[in-house]
């Protein structure tokens, strides 16, 4: 058995969207290095529940497998914490030193208002998709056979790589301009690479980018911080691609 770890945590507490938030200090001891970050928070929450009889720390999570995109957390100044290519639920305590002080904050971005403690409202992402992030096919089941239009493997793979975005919002949280360009470009690219999505590509790119601006996300200035923090390794290449698409949508 590896040695157990102790931590000091500075956690952002905020009762609701109106109230002011503040950092509160907690201690947790005897944490296994094989615990995930969220399991460590579970342990802390149980402690708080009975030591202080105060309300537990609220944070978003669901699948705990790195796929639903629900977990967030800004840990020691990094979206999803210090490990690369993982979500917070896949971050393990072995990535921290014994005795370390860990800062835990919510995603901070105007289009992601805080709901409580570490939970933010990311429905602006849904609204961007609603503005056109789809192929307008009916769901009547009278579509053509899936093999009638062959798709070159490289294209299909590229579309797939873009489609792996889990909509977590780390790219926004990591960006100094609070741009949602990585997220938006991933979605636009997925469809632009596929024959099925090409017909509507001009309308799609125009609508989604306009919506992104309207929601209050900043513009992309190519710092590539998003790519570094994206748990799914979405490449900023897609941003370049979408910039071209955007310009050609005017012609």
């Amino acid at each position, binding site marked *: 058995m590896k040695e157990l770890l102790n931590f000091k945590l500075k956690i952002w507490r905020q009762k609701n969207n109106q109230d002011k938030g503040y950092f509160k200090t907690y201690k947790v001891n005897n944490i296994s290095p094989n615990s995930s970050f969220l399991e460590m928070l579970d342990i802390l929450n149980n402690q708080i529940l009975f030591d202080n009889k105060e309300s537990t720390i609220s944070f978003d999570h669901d699948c705990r*497998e790195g796929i639903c995109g629900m977990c967030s957390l800004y840990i020691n100044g990094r979206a999803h914490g210090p*490990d690369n290519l*993982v979500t917070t639920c896949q971050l393990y305590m072995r990535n921290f030193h014994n005795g370390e002080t860990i800062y835990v904050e919510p995603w901070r971005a105007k289009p992601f208002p805080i709901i409580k403690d570490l939970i933010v409202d990311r429905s602006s992402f*849904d609204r961007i998709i609603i503005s056109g992030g789809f192929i307008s096919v009916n769901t009547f089941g009278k579509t053509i056979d899936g093999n009638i239009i062959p798709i070159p493997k490289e294209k299909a793979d590229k579309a797939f790589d873009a489609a792996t975005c889990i909509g977590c919002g780390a790219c926004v949280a990591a960006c100094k301009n609070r741009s949602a360009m990585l997220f938006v470009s991933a979605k636009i690219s997925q469809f632009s690479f596929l024959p099925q999505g090409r017909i509507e590509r001009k309308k799609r790119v125009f609508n989604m980018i306009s919506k992104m601006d309207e929601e209050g996300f900043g513009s992309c200035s190519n710092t590539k911080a998003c790519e570094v923090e994206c748990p799914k390794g979405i490449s900023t290449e897609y941003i370049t691609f979408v910039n071209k698409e955007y310009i050609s949508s005017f012609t």
Partner: protein
Amino acid sequence: MKYDLKKNNQVPEGKIDKKWNNHKSILKLISPNNRSNFDIIIIGSGLSGGSAAASLSELGYKVKVFCYQDSPRRAHSVAAQGGINASKNYKGDNDSIYQLFHDTIKGGDYRSREANVYRLSEISSNIIDQCVAQGVPFARDYAGYLETRSFGGTKVARTFYAKGQTGQQLLLGCYSAICRQIGKGKIKMYNRHEMLDLVLVEGVARGIIARNLVSGKLEKHSAHAVVIASGGYGNVFFLSTNAMGANASCIWKVHKKGGLFANPCYTQIHPTCIPIHGEYQSKLTLMSESLRNDGRIWVPKKLEDANFIRNGIKKPENINEENRDYYLERRYPSFGNLVPRDVASRAAKERCDKGFGIENNENGEGVFLDFNSSIEKYGEEKANELGINNPSLEKKRQLGKEVIESKYGNLFHMYEKITEKNPYETPMKIYPAVHYTMGGLWVDYNLMSNIPGCFVIGEANFSDHGSNRLGASALMQGLADGYFILPYTIANYLAKYVTYKNENFSIKNVEFNKSESFVKNKIKRLIQNNGKKSVDFFHKKLGNIMWKYVGMSRNHTGLSKSINKIQELRNEFWNNVFVPGDVEDGLNTELEKAGRVADFLELGELMAMDALNRKESCGCHFREEYKTKEGEALRNDLHYKYVSAWEYQENKFISDEIMHKEYLDFNFVKLESRSYK
């Protein structure tokens, strides 16, 4: 008798391959201009709820969708890894509707409804086409055509996939279809809302009570029909592969309003999960079944080797070929590593029970899933393809690893992150874990529960899987129900209300107030309880009881014991649980959990009762008293060829529930004992 389920199941007469078409031709229609007068509530935005929402609003109905997550894109379907079945026969391996039907019926150990499964097989092809049209990036071969692979319990490659993220890609397809309708104003989405009661007016489903999880306020919503698509109840075991928020509350509320609960004891245990490694653990992680295509499962042949491995004295690489027991290939030569999940899970348990487990945890539970021979085989093939003569072993392994990475890269990455071990270099360790529930609310052929106006689709219903589910068939069922079945059958139900005034369907009805105060009181009781134990404490304890006595194998003594234990635990819960906060407070995650665990504590008892009643072994339900000489499951068709459907008795205990039976007919397939030898 109140319920003659066989008579009421609405299965059409006639030849099995004609049933669905004939049935469709007699279903009533609603004209397009009338459809917008109908409100439909859907609970759940996973593959079943999402596809239903998209199709129904496309047809013109007004739809409200509820989910507890912050966005419909996060429904638990997103986690499905392996793939979705369809009998397209693209690979020319003689697949057909009949083959898929037969495999599924056999996989379910002859405890599913024949007509439903046939319909599912018929529809399967459409699903793939629909998803391709939506832009789902399925895997493709170099010629640009759709790629498939093979899953447990079948001898053909009919599983379509998108790397290890098939669920996410299918769900995003569905989600984009929902978003399109939200944009048109036809779907209203209620994120972060939890359904807490079903409202009946004169015995008919007319709406729900939901809690806004952010504001904490209770809301009333009325509709002409309520569709339940809330997923499965595997979280009753606490540790499972399900999402942490997945719950049984929705179906349990319907059950307590009169909805029959069918086959509660059928829980699928998935053979390839990462073994438990600590007490703090909050959930188990699945390694997709598709890995069994290329991984070989083994444990050491000698007890001492197993011991050495557990204690870190030997590594798997130190055990040479003749000292390895590839027990699935040994016991089931014709299916080998691709036997169905229940068979593979029990075989792993059998080896570990005998002391051959390789993981250093409490019970030494774990077996190896080894990719070494595939890496070498693929490396050799690739070298040939590239024209490399006499490649070194190193080169071969490098090429082989690349092939494996292209197939399962993200799964290997996930495994490494969790365990710190690199599965390209050393075999994965796996062990069975709770994964999927085949039981659920009883529905007829039209997917309607015994409560008129309350439809149930996806994992929440019981209909298509029998006592076991083959891999890649849950996604298929969810989408078949939502895209292609419900839209037809719900119209048939709604048609009788075309001339009704909408006031008849309003939240002004007193029943809504009654339900609301019922829910409010329950919340109050939880919050004002002021006990000494956390909700998680009770959930874990329940999970232990369930896993020990109602898990992979069951017996009379254990099941009887578990029933008492669950009752005791439930009493303790209501006396001693602590939930912080105030009734009027907004977001309160402890309260959310408390409500869900309260329901699990009732459902757990019903699961044990159902398992106790079923004195046979079938599929995932393995009763130790009923097995063949070789230790395989021994079914009893003479006495148990039925679906058990439990009826809750108002204001009585769970132990007072009454069981009804829907006897199953098999006219198209011959009942056989399931063998994968």
